[in-house]
C-alpha cells in the first residue's frame, strides 16, 4: 500500500457568498479507512462533503485525491476518479425505478460487463434492492431507500464513499444494519468518509475521526481516543441527538 493519502484537505477555506464556512481545514483520509466527521449544526460538515464532490469550490487551499489536485475539477471528473456520494436524506431520483437509480450511479462508467458485475454485487449485498428493482424509488421505505443510496454509490466502483448522515431518519434496528453494511463495504477496500449525528455508533466502526466546530477542526484522533475524550462525551455521546 502506498503512503499517499487517498484524500487530503490542505488549509481549505470554503465560502457561501460572504459566509466563511470552512476555515483552514485539514483532513487526511488514508486508503482503507473509515473516518467520521463530527460536529454540531452549521459546523461545516455538509459543506465538507460538497467541497469533496465539487458542488462548492474552495476559495483557497487544496484538495488532493491520490496525490492529484482535484479542487478545480468538475464533479463528473471526481466521480470518474472514484469518489461517490451517499447524500443526506438519500436523495434518490424518486420517479425513477430502483434499477434506474442504480444505473445513474454507474453513469460515468460505460462498460456493460462491469455494470452487470457491479449490479450482482449490489444485489448480493442487498437482496431487498433486487426484489424492488422495478419499483419507483420514491415509494420505498426509508431503510430501503438507504440501501439503494448505498447501492447507487457502489455502482460507481468508488475508492472513496462520502456519506452524509447515513443513519438519519432510520429506525434503530435499521441503523445497526446500515453501519454493519458500511463495515462490510470497507472490508472490501473502499474507504469511507462519513458525517454522522449518531456519534457513538459512528465512532464504534470508524478508525479515526475529526471534530468540526463553526468551520474549524478542533479535535482529531483515533476513534477510540475520541470516544474516550470527555469533551466528546459531553457534546456528542452524553445525550440522544433528536432531529
Amino acid at each position, binding site marked *: 500500500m502506498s503512503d499517499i493519502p487517498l484524500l487530503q484537505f490542505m488549509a481549505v477555506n470554503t465560502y457561501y457568498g460572504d459566509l466563511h464556512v470552512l476555515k483552514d481545514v485539514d483532513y487526511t483520509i488514508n486508503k482503507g479507512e473509515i473516518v467520521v466527521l463530527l460536529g454540531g449544526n452549521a459546523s461545516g460538515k455538509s459543506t465538507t462533503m460538497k467541497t469533496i*464532490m465539487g*458542488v462548492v469550490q474552495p476559495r483557497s487551499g487544496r484538495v488532493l485525491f491520490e496525490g492529484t489536485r482535484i479542487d478545480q475539477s*468538475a*464533479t*463528473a471528473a471526481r*466521480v*470518474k476518479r472514484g469518489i461517490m*456520494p451517499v*447524500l443526506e436524506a438519500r*436523495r*434518490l*431520483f*424518486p*420517479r*425513477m425505478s430502483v434499477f*434506474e437509480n442504480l*444505473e*445513474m*450511479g454507474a*453513469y*460515468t462508467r460505460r462498460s456493460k460487463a462491469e455494470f452487470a458485475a457491479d449490479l450482482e454485487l449490489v444485489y448480493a449485498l442487498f437482496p431487498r434492492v433486487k426484489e424492488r428493482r422495478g419499483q419507483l424509488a420514491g415509494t420505498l421505505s426509508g431503510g430501503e431507500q438507504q440501501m439503494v443510496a448505498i447501492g*447507487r454509490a457502489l455502482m*460507481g466502483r468508488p475508492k472513496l464513499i462520502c456519506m452524509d448522515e447515513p443513519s438519519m431518519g432510520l429506525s434503530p434496528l435499521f441503523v445497526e444494519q446500515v453501519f454493519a453494511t458500511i463495515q462490510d463495504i470497507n472490508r472490501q477496500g473502499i474507504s469511507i468518509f462519513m458525517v454522522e449525528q449518531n456519534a457513538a455508533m459512528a465512532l464504534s466502526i470508524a478508525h479515526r475521526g475529526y471534530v468540526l466546530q463553526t468551520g474549524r477542526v478542533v479535535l482529531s484522533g483515533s476513534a477510540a481516543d475520541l470516544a474516550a475524550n470527555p469533551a466528546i462525551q459531553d457534546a456528542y455521546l452524553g445525550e440522544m441527538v433528536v432531529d
Partner: protein
Amino acid sequence: MITPIELFAQQAVNGLSLGAMYALLALGFTLVYGILELINFAHFNVFMIGSFVGLIVLQALGIAGQSVVLHGAPLIFALLLALIVTMLVCGILGVLIERFTLRPMRGVRGPMAMITTIGVSYILYNVVLLATNAQALNFPDPLATQDFDIHHVVIRAKQILIWIISLILMVGLDQFVRRSRLGKAMRATAQDAEAARMMGVDVDRVVSTAFFAGSALAGAAGLIFGLYYNFTQYSIGYSAGLRAFTAAVLGGIGNVPGAMLGGILIGLIETMSSQYIATKWADVIIFSILILVLVFKPAGLLGALAPNRS
C-alpha cells in the same frame, strides 16, 4: 346532407390535427420547465422561425406556389428534407439561445431568466417582421388534392401526414427520455439536479439537450402550421404558442405525457367550440377551461413535475 355525428367526427379530425401541433409545441415548454423551472417564452417564436425555415427549404426545392402538387417519392423526399432541416435549425437556435442568454444567469433567483426569454422572443419576432415587411407569406401545399372522404367526413392527406409526423416524434421523444443514457440523465436532473451532478451528469449538457429537443419539436410544429394553414407570418407564434403553453399547464407542466394529452385536448376544444359556439369564443373557452382545471386540479390533469429544490 351531413349528419350531426358526421359533423362531430369532422371536427374531431380537425381538432386532432391542431392538437398534434400544439402537443409538439407544448413538449418544448414542458421539457425546459421540468429541468430549469423556467417558462421559455422564446419558444413561441422559435416555432414561428420554424415555419419560415420550412418555407425556405420547400421554396429552394422549387415548390414555390400553392399550385405545385407532388406525389410519391419526390413528395416524401421534399417533406422529409424540410422536416429535418427545420428541426435541426430550430434545435440549434434553441441551444444558442440557452447558451448565450440563459446560461450566464443560471442560478440567479427570481424572474430574470423568464424576462430574458421574453426579450429574446421579441428579437426573433422583430427580425422576421422587418425581414418580411410584416407580410403574410403563402406556404406551399404540395398535398393539396389528396383527400379522403369517408361518410362525408373529409380527412385531408396533410392531416394524416401531421398525425404520422407527430406520432413518430412523440414516440421518439418518449423513448429517448425513457431509455437512452442522456434521456435518463435528463429525468434524473429534472428530479434532483444536484444529486444528478454528483452521479457525474454534466448538467449543462442535459440543459442543452432539453433545449435542442424542445426547439426541434417546435420547428416541426412550425412546419406543420405552414402546411396546415398554407400561410405563415411573423406573428403566428403568439396565439399558437399561448395555446400550446396552456396545453402544457393543462396536462401538468413538466410532465411529458401531460403535454401530449394537453395539446390534443386544446386542439379538440378549439375546433369543437368553433363549430358549436363561435370561432371568436374559442380562446375564451380554452382559457376558461384552463382556469377551471387549475382551480380544481392545480397540478394539471396528469400532475405537474417541478424540479426538486434543496
